[in-house]
Structure formats: C-alpha cells, structure tokens
C-alpha cells in the first residue's frame, strides 16, 4: 500500500515540476495525430478515386495506359509504406531528402517533417480502407448516378464517398488512435511529443516508473476521449432515425373539423364560452423506425 502512496507522491512531484511539459507534449501529440490523420484520409480518398476510374475498350490507348500506371503507382505506394516500420520511414525521409538533394532540400521545421511522414504512412493504410469502403457500396448506386449523367468524380464525391466514409469511420478512428500512440516514434528525428518529454524528464531525475505511469494515464485518456468523440460523430453521420412529413395530405380531413370561411362551424358559440374545443397546436407527425439499427 505504501508503495502506491509513494508512487502517488512521486507522480505528484513530477507533475508539479514538469506538468506544463507533459501537457505541451500531449498537445503536440494530439495535434500531430489529428493533422496527419486528416491529411492521411485525404490521401486515401484521392487514391480511392484514382484507383476506381473506369476504362473500357473505347478509352483511348494513352489514357488507358495512364490509368493503369496510376493504379500500379498507388499499389506500390501502399505496399511500401504499409510494409515498413514508421520509425524507419521517418529516418529514411528525414535524412534521405537532404542526402539526395545535396542539402538543398531539407526540413527546417520538425513539424513539417513529422506531419509529412505520419500523413504518408496513414495515407497508405487509408487508401486500402477507402478501397474497402468503396467496394462495400452497392454498385447499383454507381449505376444510378451514371444513369443521370454524373461523371466519375461527381459520382464519387456526391454519392459513393460520403457513404464509404461513413462505413470506414471506425477505421478512421482506429487510425487516429494508432497515430496518437505511434507518433511516439517521432523522437527519432527529434520531434518533441508526449513520449519525448518522458525521455527528457527521466534523463534528469531517474524517476522512470512514476513518469511512465503519468504517460500511461495521459495516452489512455487521450485515446478514450477520442473513442467517445468518434462514436458521437458516427451517430451524427447516420442522421435522424425519423423524418417529418413535409405536408399533410390536403384532401384528408378529420370529421367535424370543417369550417366555412364566412359562417364558421356550428361549435363556434360553444368555443367562445368554454374554449374547450380549441384546435390543438399543429403538431407534425413523425414517422420512421425507432433506434432499431445496429
């Protein structure tokens, strides 16, 4: 028990001295994970659109070749960046770019480098997720869109991707949470996110375990909050379970509700006295299924 008390007091001590450092680390981690996941999603969506541009025997030969080439390039990109560790990609890109360009191209901002690397990595995963999302949409929807004259890009952006995006929301969430944790490897290029502060702080005072406990709690609270927000967003994207009738049927009248424009109804006298037959305030009917969806 006293071990726990000691841990508690050590953590409190660390927090007192380095609390702002931990918090700024969490901020960097969240910002990097969020930006990189968003850019990764965009890369994934673009790859998804490029990968599904249809061609047939009427497509001119150069265009057909180009489309095939694009698919090959996307495939290579996905396989390379999905198949190698991100920590290695970070080193490879961060030091590789100046190496090849004779130091004319190098990262003078660690944020740029970190965002680029994590985005490219996420994009490779998202490209496959988006592909799965597109496949999951009934091809009839594509035909329906084509039949009213939509182009491939219009079909994708208005009809298919919004639905695919909804279907892959759990995977986007997955990627975000993975990014929150995996950005910790960015210490390799000197990016100071949450975990980097652990390394600095323990380098000064050797309080490895209390600091690790703080890190554990920090990461877990970030990912748990992210999960809750993502669930909420999914619910929002599903839209309302019920809908409002836009107009009542003009010809349908309940018996006894007829009122002559000039003469009124026979009950007007009664209404004046008691007022008990007042018209109920116009309440719109709601139809639809309750929350019986999965």
């Amino acid at each position, binding site marked *: 028990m006293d071990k726990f008390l000691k841990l508690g007091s050590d953590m409190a001590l660390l927090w007192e001295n380095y609390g702002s450092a931990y918090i700024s680390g969490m901020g960097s981690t969240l910002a990097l994970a969020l930006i990189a996941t968003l850019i990764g999603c965009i890369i994934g969506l673009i790859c998804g659109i490029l990968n599904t541009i249809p061609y*047939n025997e009427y497509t001119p030969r150069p265009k057909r070749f180009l489309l095939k080439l694009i698919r090959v390039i996307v495939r290579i990109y996905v396989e390379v960046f999905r198949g190698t560790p991100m920590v290695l990609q970070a080193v490879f890109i961060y030091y590789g770019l100046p190496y090849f360009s004779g130091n004319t191209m190098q990262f003078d901002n660690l944020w740029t480098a970190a965002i680029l690397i994590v985005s490219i990595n996420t994009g490779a995963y998202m490209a496959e997720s988006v592909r799965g999302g597109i496949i999951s949409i*009934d091809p009839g929807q594509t035909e*329906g869109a084509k039949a009213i*004259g939509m182009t491939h890009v219009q079909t994708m952006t*208005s009809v298919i991707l919004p639905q695919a995006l909804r279907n892959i929301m759990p995977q986007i969430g997955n990627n975000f949470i993975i990014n929150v944790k995996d950005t910790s490897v960015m210490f390799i290029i000197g990016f100071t996110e949450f975990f980097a502060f652990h390394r600095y702080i323990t380098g000064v005072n050797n309080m490895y375990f209390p600091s690790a406990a703080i890190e554990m709690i920090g990461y877990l609270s970030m990912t748990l909050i992210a999960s809750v927000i993502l669930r909420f967003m999914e619910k929002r994207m599903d839209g309302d379970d019920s*809908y409002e009738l836009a107009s009542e049927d003009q010809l349908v009248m309940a018996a006894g509700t007829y009122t002559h424009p000039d003469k009124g109804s026979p009950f007007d006298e009664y209404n004046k006295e008691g007022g008990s037959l007042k018209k109920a305030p116009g309440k719109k009917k709601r139809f639809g299924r309750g929350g019986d969806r999965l």
Partner: protein
Amino acid sequence: MSEVILEVKHLSKSFGSHSVLKDIDFNVSPGDVTSIIGASGSGKSTLLRCINLLETPTSGEIRYHGSVITGPGVDAAKYRSHVGMVFQSFNLFNNMTVLENCMVGQVKVLKKTKAEAREKALYYLDRVGMTPYINARPRQISGGQKQRVAIARALAMDPEILLFDEPTSALDPEMVGEVLSVMQKLAEEGMTMLVVTHEMAFARDVSKRVVYMNDGVICEEGTPGEIFGDPKKQETRDFLSRFRKEGPAV
C-alpha cells in the same frame, strides 16, 4: 414521320463466350411507348443497359439523333443525361433525402441553381405523389415509394427518353399498382418510354408497341393487338401461353 431518337443497328453483346444479344436492330421514335417482353435471360435487360451504355456493346452501333454514341471519344455522361433510366432495384442514393435525390443530378450535371432544381424536383415528386416524403431517406420508405422517387429523379433531368428495367419486379404485389399507374400517366402524356417488363397487362394496355425477345434476338414485334391477339411465331405463342395459364393478366 418524326425524327428517330435512337437507332440500334446490328447490336451484339457477349459476356466471354456467352453471347447475350445477337444482331439487334431497333428504333425508338418520339412518343413511342415500347414494352420489351421475354423470358428471363433472353437479353432484355442487357439491351436496355447497352442503350444506356452501362454495358459496352461487343459490336454494332447505337445512334442518338443520328450520331454514334458507341465508340471512342463519346461523352457517355452527357448522353446519359438525356436518357433517363429506372432500375429494378431503385438505386436511390442512400446518403440523401428523397428531395436531394431528385436535385443532385440537376445541380451537378445540368448546372442548375439549387432553387431551380428544388422547384423542378418538387414538381415531379408531386406528380408521383411523393410530396409528403421529401424529407425521408430511402431506407425509410417502401419499395413502391422508392421506385416512384426513382421515376421522379429520372424525370427531373428532363430526359428525352426514359428506360425502365423491370421497374416492378422487385416490388411486393400490392405496390406494383402505384408504380404502374405513374408509368401509365407518363405514357398518356406522350413520354417516350422503353420498358422491360413482366407485367403483361401493362405491355398490352399501355404500350403502343411490343417487342418479344427470345434467346438474344428480337423474335417478333408489333402492336399489342398483334402480339397478344395474333402472334405469328410459335415461340411467342408458347411464351404468352404460360401467362395465360397462370392468371388473368392477359
């Protein structure tokens, strides 16, 4: 005689070694209401899908107002915006409401403003009796209602010709009527329609021309009176006799 809208010449389509359409010749003039009947697998739907370029014909050509639309360098999307299609499985956009379904094509393809598109969409939704449901999503309405929305969506594009691919085959029997009555109204108003159907009563009573397809070829065509009253070919007689036995459809 008015100008022909669509000309189908020597159209063939094979899937691998299986040839589905064999040398089809076929014209559509303005105001035509043509029913295509025939057994399942006889190529009716494939013909319709070729006409809308959802399938690429293996050989032959299709002309739209005289210009060939089967070949390289054709703007298929633009052509399709003139030729509406209603599918067996409705194919409404599930991410949009009923109203948005009828607006999106006008806004994206015809480049109309939202207000114009909305007005036209509301007009056609009213025509098919779906005004109360404009805020509903496809998953919330019945099959017959979905199909009526699909018809309104196609009409909102002001198509010159409307293709129906077995529009009532996926519906419960009690919903077939509401869709057919909408189609009948359209036919009476002079809409050019090409209908693949198993509803013999519709083919007989509403269409002006009936095409009987068998095994990938047009076996016989004529007025409903000719096809149903006095079919010339043995295959046509055999096909129709199956319906006669089954019920009062014909």
